[in-house]
């Protein structure tokens, strides 16, 4: 099956949050009590039942204020740190190249929470499981576009085949000019959610400049994990060889011990 990608063109986003609402509706997620902390961003962060969120930012320039809206959510990495660390296979790749969650398998170990370079998976204390966007797997399997893309009134969120979306993103970034750039296709093996950003990536809140699978995850899963079996296997083989070649350390037989070489 062809890999699919969601393109988020922040230059077209008006911050209406239709996507946020559509996500809640399709995934049947209730709202949580929230608080006003002096910004339009609401709720303050992604939550176990808020899988996408428009991040609002005000950037003060000389004589005006610039607004930035960025739809945050799972990036659906090709090399996903969360899938790498998940002990139960709850987090897994789909045929579309996206990363889905089988909640019945989740054991609430939260290993993905600290592994994700984008800090996406959120833990729910009540169910003792983690939750995140699955790019509307139930919809894309039925040949529908994700709920957020369906709800977006300005065309800021579009969905389609990976290569076509990347091509479209670069064409749009070129059209915008200036600092406009494409974010997502160049790291963690290429994400299945890509952005056309109007500013350099580091300008945006909660958006890592050069995200990667954490080095600690690579040491842990690609080095120490196989080494643990190798080392134990080596010891077992060594013990066997020791037994058949050198032999066990036996006490001297009674009577002969006094004449021993001590």
């Amino acid at each position, binding site marked *: 099956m062809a890999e699919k990608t969601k393109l988020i063109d922040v230059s077209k986003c008006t911050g209406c949050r239709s996507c946020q609402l559509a996500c809640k509706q399709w995934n049947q997620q209730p709202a949580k009590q929230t608080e006003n902390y002096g910004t339009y961003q609401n709720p303050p962060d992604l939550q176990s039942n808020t899988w996408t969120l428009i991040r609002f930012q005000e950037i003060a320039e000389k004589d005006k204020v610039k607004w930035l809206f960025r739809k945050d959510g799972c990036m659906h990495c090709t090399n996903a740190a969360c899938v790498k660390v998940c002990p139960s296979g709850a987090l897994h790749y789909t045929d579309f190249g996206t990363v889905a969650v089988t909640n019945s*398998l989740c054991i609430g*170990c939260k290993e993905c929470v600290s592994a994700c370079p984008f800090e996406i998976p959120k833990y729910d204390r009540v169910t003792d499981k983690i939750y995140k966007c699955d790019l509307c797997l139930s919809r894309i399997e039925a040949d529908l576009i994700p709920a957020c893309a369906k709800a977006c009134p300005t065309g800021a969120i579009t969905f389609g085949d990976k290569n076509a979306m990347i091509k479209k993103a670069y064409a749009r970034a070129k059209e915008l000019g200036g600092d406009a750039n494409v974010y997502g296709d160049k790291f963690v093996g290429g994400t299945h959610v890509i952005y056309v950003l109007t500013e350099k990536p580091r300008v945006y809140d909660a958006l890592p400049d050069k995200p990667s699978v954490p080095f600690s995850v690579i040491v842990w899963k690609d080095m120490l994990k196989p*080494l643990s079996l190798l080392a*134990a296997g080596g010891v077992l083989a060594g013990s066997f060889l020791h*037994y058949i070649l*050198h032999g066990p*350390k036996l*006490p001297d037989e009674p009577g002969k011990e006094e004449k021993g070489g001590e």
Partner: protein
Amino acid sequence: MRKGLIQATDGFERIVHWSLALSCIALCITGLGMMYQSLNFIGDMMGGLKSLKYVHNFTGVFFGVALYFTIRMWWKEAGIFSMPEDLEWIRCAGGYLWHVDNPPEVGKYNPGQKMFFLAIAGFGVIMFLTGLMMWFPLSFPPTIVRLMYVLHALGFVVIFAFFFVHLYLGTIGSPGSLDAMLTGWVSRAWLKKQHPKWLKEMEHEGTLVVYGEEKPSAKGHH
């Protein structure tokens, strides 16, 4: 028990040893169940992988308590090298790996056993502390928690490998040794071969407990 056997360990030592050993094995098995998806089935007998997680975590608490008593009980005897004889022993690997005419006489613990003790004590503490932080990862910054997973995995590499060394040398690799941790009574011949200096020390200090003979004043660790 047979007449003439010598007491190598007391009941307290054996209970602490087996509390640590059995919880360690349980932790290795349940840990493997989470480390390898192909071993997820280990969780089935516990009612699922989520239950296995809790078995692992609470066994870890038990392990921590056992480790505390282990270290308190043995660190003086097994945690400190006595130079230069221990260095000499290490140079010839105690005669375990190649033929050595007269390996240095060892006391209650040989340097190999001391290294094993130090590895278990050191990495055991690391396993307990990192495991505790991995249990509540949201209470710490992600960069710190990521390091905890690496240390926990490193501790597993060391302890899992050492476990098999210990298993071999505690059983078929050194016949007679297992009795020291099962009944606590060993033969004089075994003691003379494995820990001659300790035997001499006990004879000299009059602390030798021989089965069937009148007991000298009771010795203990506490």
